[in-house]
C-alpha cells in the first residue's frame, strides 16, 4: 500500500563508522571556510556595508547594460556594480557608501533617477547609511550568538549536558559551513541571510534533538549498551523520519528556488543547502561526537526506575 519507502525497515547500518570520513572531512571544510572567509571574505550586501542598491527595468523590455555601466561609472560615485538579471530587461546597480556621512548618500539616488528615469522604471531603491549598517552588523551578530546560547541552555535543561554540548557542536559546524557556502557562491550576505542562518540553527537542532530524544529513551531501556551501539540504534530508528522531513522541507524550498522570484531565491538556495548540511551533521558529527564526550559521563539519566521498567 505504501508507494514510497525511502529507508528499509529494521536497518542496522553502522553510522558510527562514518565518523572516520566525516570528522576529517568536516574539519578540512571548516578550516577551508576559515581561510576563504579571511582571504576572500563575504560578499556583504548594503545592509551591512552601507551604500545604495537600485533595481531598474527597461520600459522597452531591453536593457542596455553596457550603456548603463558607462553612464553610472561617469557619475563619480566610486566603483559601481552593474548586473543584468531576470528576463525582462532588469538591471541592478550597486553604489558603494559615499564619504561625507549620512546625508551624502542621497545624491546617488537623485543623480540616478534624473539620468535613467526616462527609459527605466525604478523597481527598488535602497540606501543604507554608515550608522544604520553598523547597527545591523551588530544586531545580526548578537542574534546568531544569542540564539546559540539560548538553545544551549534549553538543551541543557531538557537533556543531559553531554547531549547539549554535542548538539551545539553540530550547530556551530552547520553555521560555519553555511558561511562557507556564502563565501564560495558569492551570495549577497544581508539581513535575510541572518534569518537564513537562524532558521538553519533551528533546523539543525531539530534534527539532532529527534535523534537524541531516541538516544535518551534507549539509554533508559538498555542500561549497559555501549554508546556506539546505542547511537547507531537511535539513528537507524529515526532514519526514515529524518529522510521524510528532509525531503518535504527540501521540496518546499525547491518550489521557492524555482518560482519564488529573484528576491527570495538566494534565501531559498542557502536554506536548501542548510537542510542537507544539517541532516549530515546530525548523523555524522553530533551523534558520533557523543562517543568522545562520553554518553553516560555524568550518569545523569534522570528517570525513575518504575518508568524505565515499564518501557521494556
Amino acid at each position, binding site marked *: *500500500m505504501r508507494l*514510497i*519507502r525511502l529507508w528499509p*525497515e*529494521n536497518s542496522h547500518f553502522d553510522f558510527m563508522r562514518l565518523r572516520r570520513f566525516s570528522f576529517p572531512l568536516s574539519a578540512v571544510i571548516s578550516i577551508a571556510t576559515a581561510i576563504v572567509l579571511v582571504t576572500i571574505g563575504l560578499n556583504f550586501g548594503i545592509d551591512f556595508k552601507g551604500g545604495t542598491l537600485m*533595481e531598474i527595468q527597461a520600459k522597452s523590455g531591453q536593457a542596455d547594460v553596457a550603456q548603463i555601466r558607462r553612464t553610472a561609472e561617469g557619475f563619480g560615485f566610486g566603483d559601481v556594480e552593474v548586473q543584468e538579471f531576470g528576463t525582462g530587461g532588469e538591471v541592478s546597480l550597486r553604489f558603494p557608501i559615499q564619504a561625507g556621512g*549620512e*546625508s551624502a*548618500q*542621497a545624491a546617488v539616488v537623485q543623480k540616478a*533617477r534624473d539620468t535613467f528615469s526616462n527609459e527605466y*522604471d525604478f*523597481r*527598488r531603491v*535602497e*540606501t*543604507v*547609511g554608515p*550608522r544604520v549598517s553598523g547597527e545591523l552588523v551588530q*544586531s*545580526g551578530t*548578537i*542574534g546568531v550568538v*544569542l540564539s546559540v546560547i*539560548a*538553545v544551549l541552555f*534549553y538543551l541543557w535543561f531538557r537533556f543531559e549536558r553531554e547531549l547539549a554540548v554535542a548538539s551545539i557542536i553540530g550547530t556551530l559546524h552547520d553555521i560555519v559551513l553555511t558561511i562557507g557556502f556564502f563565501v564560495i557562491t558569492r551570495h549577497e550576505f544581508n*539581513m*535575510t541571510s541572518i*534569518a537564513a542562518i*537562524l*532558521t538553519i*540553527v*533551528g*533546523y539543525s*537542532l*531539530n534534527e539532532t*534533538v*529527534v535523534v537524541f*530524544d*531516541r538516544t535518551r529513551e534507549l539509554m533508559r531501556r538498555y542500561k549497559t549498551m555501549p554508546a556506539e551501539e546505542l547511537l547507531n540504534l537511535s539513528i537507524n*530508528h*529515526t532514519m526514515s*523520519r529524518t529522510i*521524510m*522531513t528532509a525531503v*518535504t*522541507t527540501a*521540496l*518546499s524550498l*525547491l*518550489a*521557492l528556488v*524555482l*518560482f*519564488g*522570484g529573484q*528576491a*527570495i531565491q538566494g534565501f*531559498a538556495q542557502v536554506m536548501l543547502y542548510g537542510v542537507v548540511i544539517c541532516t549530515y551533521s546530525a548523523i555524522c558529527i553530533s551523534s558520533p561526537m557523543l562517543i568522545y564526550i562520553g554518553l553516560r559521563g555524568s550518569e545523569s539519566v534522570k528517570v525513575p526506575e518504575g518508568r524505565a521498567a515499564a518501557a521494556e
Partner: protein
Amino acid sequence: MLRFSRSKIIATVAIIVIGLLLAVPSTMNREQRQAYLNAIPSWIPSWLVPSRAIVLGLDLQGGSHVLLEVDQQDLLRGQITLLRDDVRRILRDTRVSSQNGIQTVQRGVQIRVPDAADRERLMPRLRELSQPIGNAMLGQSGGNSVQINTTPDGVITLTYTDAGINERVRRAVDQSIEVVRRRIDATGTTEPSIQRQGADRVLVQVPGLQDPQQLKALLGETGNLEFRLLAQAGATDVDMLPMQDAGGQRVPVERRVIAEGGDLTDAQPAFDSQTRQPIVNFRFNIRGAQRFGQATTENLGRQLAIVLDNRVISAPTIQSPITGGSGQISGSFTVEQVNNLAVLLRSGALPAKLTIVEERTVGPGLGRDSIEAGKLATYVAAVFVVLFMFATYGVFGLIANIALLVHVGLIFGLMSVLEATLTLPGIAGIVLTIGTAVDSNVLIYERIREEVRSGRSIVSGIQAGFDRAFATIVDSNSTMAIAALILFFLGSGPVRGFAVVFILGILTTVITAVTLTRMLIALWYQWMRPKVLPF
C-alpha cells in the same frame, strides 16, 4: 484510548472553524472587504464579525520607508544659542558684565565675573536655567539639565548634562513626529505611518509612494524662517549668510530677528500678478504683524533678508511700510519650490535637522511580481508535499494533508487577528512551514509504525505513537521557536515578518498535527476498523 468525546470534537472543530473564518477578510481586497462588511446584517454585533486583515509589507504593496535621525549636533548648537541668549538676558537684568563676553565652549557657554558681589547677584538667576529632568509630579528625578561650575577666579561655565541632552533629544523626536506628520499630510499622501524608533529616530512609511524625492526634500529642511535686515556697512552684530540667488555669495545680515516662522498664521503658494513668477503669500499673527509693521516703517528703503535655515532666500527692498500683516516671498523659485516652501512654513520648524539614515523604496510593479511569485511557490510547494505525503502514508498521508491545509489557514487567521504584516520573507516562511509542518505528522506516523511492528495492536500502536512522539515534537519545535523569537526581537521590517510567520506556524502545529490529526485518525479507525496499518 482512541475515543474522543463529542464535546472535545466539537471544541476542536469550533477552534479550527473560527481560526479559518478569521482569515476570510484577508482574502479580499479593500472594496470587497467593504462590501462584505456592509452585507453583514446589523443585528450581529460587530465584534463577532471577522473584520481584521493581514497588512501587506511595503516590500509587497510598494512604497517608501524612510528612517530619519535627529541631528544631535545641530540640536545642541541650537540649545547652546538659546543658553547664550538666556545668559545675556540675565547679565543685562542684573547689570553684571562678563570680562570677555560670552564664550561658547563644548556643550555650553562660559563667562568671567571676577567680582564676588556681582557673582552673588548673578548665581541665583543662573541656577534657574538648570531645570530638573523628569516628571516632578511623579517624583522622578533624572538630575538637572544644566550643570554650573564656578572657579575661584570667577569663571562660570554652564554646560548641558548628558541627561539634559537626552531629554532634549526625546522631546525633539516627539516634536519632529508632529511636524513631519503635518508636512506629509500637506502633500495629500494617504495613510502614512510615522513612528518613533529608538532614542533619536523617526520612521516614516508611506505605502504606494514611488519616488520619495519630494518627501525627502520636505523632511530635509528644518524650516526655520526668519525675517531680518541686511546689515548696513560698518554694522557689528552680523552673521555672514549665503544668498540663494547670487550663487551662494555671502552677505552680512543683522542678528536681530524681526519676526519668525512661528509668527505666521498661513502661507500659500501663488503667482505674482505682474511678473507671473511663483511666489508664497503669507499672513502674520497679531504680534508678528505689529513687529513687522514697525520694522518696515522704521527701515524704509533698506533691504529685508528672508532667511530660511540660515540661507537668505530673498532680499526685497522695503518700498513702503507693511502694516497689513500679510506679505509675499518672491525670488527665482520654481513652482515646486514655492509649494514646498509653503508647506514648510505652514507646518512649522523642526527642532533640529533630520538626517535620512536609511531609505528603502519598492515600486508597485516589483511588489506585485513578488506576490505572484510567492503565491505560485506556495501552491507548488503544497502540491509537492501533499503528493509526497500521500504516496508515503496513504490514508494517513491524506489526514496529514488536511492538517497541513488547516495549518496554513490558521496561520493566516492568526495573522489577520493580529493585523500582522506579511512581507516577502514572510511568504518564504509560509512556504518553508509547509515543509516543516508535516514533520510532526511524520514523527507520529513513524512511531506508530515502529510500535505496531514491535507487536502492538493497531489501536494501542496509534495510542503509543502519539504519546511517545509528543515529547519529541515539543523539543524539536521549541528549538525552532527559540531561534525564531530571537529573530523577531532583533530583526526589523521584512525579516521580522519571517519570524512572525514562523512563530505562529509553530503554535498552530500543536493544534493541527497533534489534536486534529489524532481526531481524524480516531474517526477513521472507528469507521474502517482496519486490521493492518495502511502504510
